[in-house]
């Protein structure tokens, strides 16, 4: 089975973000980057499936030159090779444009299964996988907790709301968007890190792929959200703030 996993590089979770002077995206210099969290689980699911079924795991990433770091880490964990679509300014891509770009690269590969994360931690559109499936004419399922091969197809467990779940079966090739936290993530071994250096990363640009990504959504302005409540921030040493808070909870909020 040939499995393609779409991974995105995003600012690390604890980054302090600063808005660019253009007001349309964040300053990239100040932050460190990591793999988008659900994509790490998509990669894990892909590696596990390929360990059972044999075949190849190819990671696909659109991002600036610096995204090579995240790609190397995926290779070190066991992905066999990678395609890096070199693309700066991801903030300007909407999910349609991102999927157009990824679709062009997928077409050169004809995988049996495509895995994406269910949502990116930066843009958070939660759509790129579904749109990619549509552009490629593939069946898909979202928010997947488990996937196993079944006959010539795949059977998955999908998360619904309010504690409901559902099993879905579909033929391959197909696309799944993977939920975070569904398994334990493996670490890269020293051996894996060494091997990764020799693995192939194919670098392509949008024009190599013959696409001009054409976003329809535009971010006009980004800014810090306004507080919906008047938050009282309590300050001081630990013992001091603790005493202040207890005082407030007892006499102001009356919840103690």
């Amino acid at each position: 089975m040939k499995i393609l996993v779409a991974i995105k590089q995003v600012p690390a979770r604890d980054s302090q973000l600063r808005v660019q002077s253009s007001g349309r995206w964040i300053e990239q210099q100040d932050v460190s980057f990591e793999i988008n969290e659900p994509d790490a689980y998509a990669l894990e699911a892909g590696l596990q499936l390929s360990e059972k079924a044999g075949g190849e795991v190819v990671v696909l990433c659109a991002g600036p030159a610096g995204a090579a770091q995240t790609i190397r880490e995926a290779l070190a964990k066991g992905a066999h090779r990678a395609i890096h679509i070199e693309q700066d300014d991801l903030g300007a891509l909407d999910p349609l444009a991102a999927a157009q770009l990824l679709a062009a690269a997928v077409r050169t590969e004809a995988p049996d299964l495509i895995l994406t994360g269910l949502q990116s931690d930066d843009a958070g559109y939660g759509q790129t996988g579904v749109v990619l499936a549509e552009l490629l004419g593939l069946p898909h399922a979202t928010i997947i907790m488990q996937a196993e091969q079944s006959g010539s197809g795949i059977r998955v467990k999908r998360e619904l709301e309010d504690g409901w779940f559902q099993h879905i079966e579909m033929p391959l090739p197909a696309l799944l968007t993977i939920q975070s936290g569904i398994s334990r993530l493996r670490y890269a071994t020293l051996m894996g890190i060494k091997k990764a250096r020799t693995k192939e990363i194919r670098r392509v640009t949008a024009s190599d792929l013959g696409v001009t990504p054409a976003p329809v959504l535009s971010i006009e302005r980004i800014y810090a959200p306004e507080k919906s409540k008047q938050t009282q921030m309590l300050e001081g040493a630990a013992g001091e703030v603790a005493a202040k808070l207890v005082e407030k909870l007892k006499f102001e909020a009356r919840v103690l």
Partner: protein
Amino acid sequence: MSGVLVITEQFRGAWRPISWEALAAGQQLASQLGTKAGAAVLGSGIGTLAQELAGKQLDRVYTVDHELLATYTADAFTAAAEQLVRQMQPEYVLFPHTYQVRDFAPKLAARFQQALVSDATALAVRGGRVLFTRQLFQGKLNADVSCGGPPPWFASVQAGAFRADQVRPGSAAIEAVPVSLDPALIRTRAEEPFREAQRAVDLSSAERIVSVGRGIREKENLGIVEELAQALDAELAASRPICDNGWLPMERQVGSSGQTVAPKLYVAVGISGAIQHLVGMKGARTIVAINKDANAPIFEIADYGIAGDLFEIVPALTEAVKKAKG
């Protein structure tokens, strides 16, 4: 029609309550644009639901009733919604941001060379143009987004962003919209939805809750929040990653895929405040947040905030509570 079309959602013949929030958003958008709003319901045997919609201030209620829509599949719902939108030609199509909408609305939008403005928290009309607000970076920043290219434009609204009780009543005619669906077009085979074991812990009736997030770093550290919970006579709860890791049982998870709680006191310890967590606890009367990042989104909804290291603050707070109770 050239106005706003709201595509509502039902599950097994009952409304998803967030449908009313999407309807409120649709009415608001239509009145700001000086146009009309219609609403559609898709499914099989949806007559009573349509009747209920007909009691709202809408231009028209559209029913898309087909046996292949009895169980949700992305393929059938996309095809049906596509035919509906092509016939009605609305300028804007609004959805509630549910798991089902996440599953098919992006596909629908792509068929119109569009992308969905997903999970919008607000909308405003400026100079005839609609700006949707949505969150970036897990709620750390907001963005105002506009739609380009030719209509229809698609957006979904976040749970809790618009108020269901602001849906304006009225009376609307019901129109059945015929669609042709071929069983061969459905590529997925969906089995019956199911629930896993019943919850043993009911957090919804708890008066006080101490909830812990990934800031706790390791399972071994949970002791300090347990002690705080005990001192406060509170139930212990958690954000999703804590339960995913198996550090606490799933039944203690608060949020869109966990429990919804409304205690008198909710203490969020080392929780960032992602929307999927907030929807489960926003209704708490008093919210305390302890987080080392002063810009964490959890502070936007907190009554009392302490920006600091939980490993110092939580034990101190436990002591202070014990002392106060004396």
